[in-house]
């Protein structure tokens, strides 16, 4: 014996739309979860002094090296920003740790000058290969 389906239960265009909406939302949710919220923008150097942001340089926009100086707490740092990198090239701070750090190129990396209390932090861009959450040592 064959069952007859009611015309009202047959799928039509509206049902297809509902299914499409659910599908799109599901894909969007998955993308959000698996990409960590999609926070990654263009690689940007954020310069802070005493915890306050004093400058931001979108490294992805640079086509050639650009030099800027920052002064805080009696120390002056000369920073060279390049396409995809930042480096303290000179500093009159007593420890020179910021100069020794060398070039940073990936989101999450930073250069710290303690005497000046200046931090240059890279944000955005591709994630670091190693995928570490923090570094000790």
């Amino acid at each position, binding site marked *: 014996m064959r069952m007859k389906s009611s015309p009202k239960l047959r799928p039509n265009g*509206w*049902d297809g*739309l*509902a*299914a499409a*909406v*659910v599908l799109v*939302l*599901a894909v969007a*949710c998955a993308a*959000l*979860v698996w990409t*960590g*919220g999609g926070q990654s923008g263009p690689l940007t150097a954020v310069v*802070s002094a*005493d*915890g306050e942001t004093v400058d931001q340089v979108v490294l992805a926009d640079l086509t050639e090296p650009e030099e800027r100086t920052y002064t805080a707490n009696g120390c002056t740092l000369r920073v060279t920003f390049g396409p995809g990198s930042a480096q303290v090239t000179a500093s009159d701070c*007593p*420890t020179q*740790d910021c100069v*020794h*750090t*060398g*070039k*940073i*190129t*990936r989101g999450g*990396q930073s250069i*710290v000058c*303690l*005497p000046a*209390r200046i*931090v240059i932090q890279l944000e955005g861009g591709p994630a*670091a*290969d*190693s*995928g*570490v*959450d*923090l*570094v*000790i*040592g």
Partner: protein
Amino acid sequence: MRRFGALLAALLLAGSLTACGGAAAQEMQTAQVFAMDTVMGLQATGGETAEALAAAEDEIYRLDEELSRTREDSAVSQLNRAEAGTSVEVGAELYDLIARALAFSQATDGAFDITLAPVSSAWGFTEDAYRVPAQEELAGLLAHVGSEHVHLDGASAVSLDQGTQIDLGAIAKGYASDAVAAIYQEHGITHGIVDLGGNTWVCGGNLKGEPWRIGVQDPARAGEAEAYTGILRMGDGFAVTSGGYQRYFEENGKTYHHIIDPATGHPAESGLTSVTVVADGTVGNGTMCDALSTALFVMGEERALDFWRSGVYDFDLILVTEDGRLLVTDGIADRFQPDETAGYAYEVIS
């Protein structure tokens, strides 16, 4: 109408799916603190996050003021300035910390020593005015070095012998990490990182529900980014690294680092280039890890491993030797992934 009801239900279902990913969608709140001669990074989420970060920041600044040797008004400076043999009321907190420091000195046979302050100053490490002191100068200063020159009087007073000064720099950040860990717990933080310049406490694992991935800096490539001896996976716990590469100066082609051997007054030459001490996240272990990382660096490989095997304290180790070996104790070997590109000969120690 029924179709719109179905669409509404579908939207609600999709919304609930987004909520299932709540932990992953959560964001870590961060704070940056300049204190204790380093830059500190705090991350937290869950619970009363903003309150926890604010309280942690306040606590770090408070401890910096109390424990600093370079701040004239600190409790430690007042003790150092007091006339020799005078009993100084330092309060219960500083008294207890000094008592713990003395216990670490005793346990490590003097390798950890808070009375090295004048020697460290002679090398210019305290004032960022580096120099190589003469042997006669060091010999004179070493006469006043040793835990026997620090006296605990009553329940909250301390006195120092003539010429003796204390510096809690080798234990203060560890103590601060304990204090911040306690604050995080009080405020119900579910995922957190407390990075106090080489002194680290983590809790809850990352937002994907996995252990935190901690890169251990390769001392041979200290100036390079992403140059690790390996990666330690840890959900909850303390990890502290001491290494000569962290602070040093060069004179006449020779490198002098900041970890002084109390037995010689010179930078320790123990054959180790880096010591990482790892312990569970129990509040109090941060202080222990900080003290032991310094002490075991001074002691060298053999004494450090003997000390670990003695079981006096419950911890694990990652040691890097000058001759290119990477030693990891078996308590954390299953959570440590050595970086083969670093070129070390990897050994698990039991």
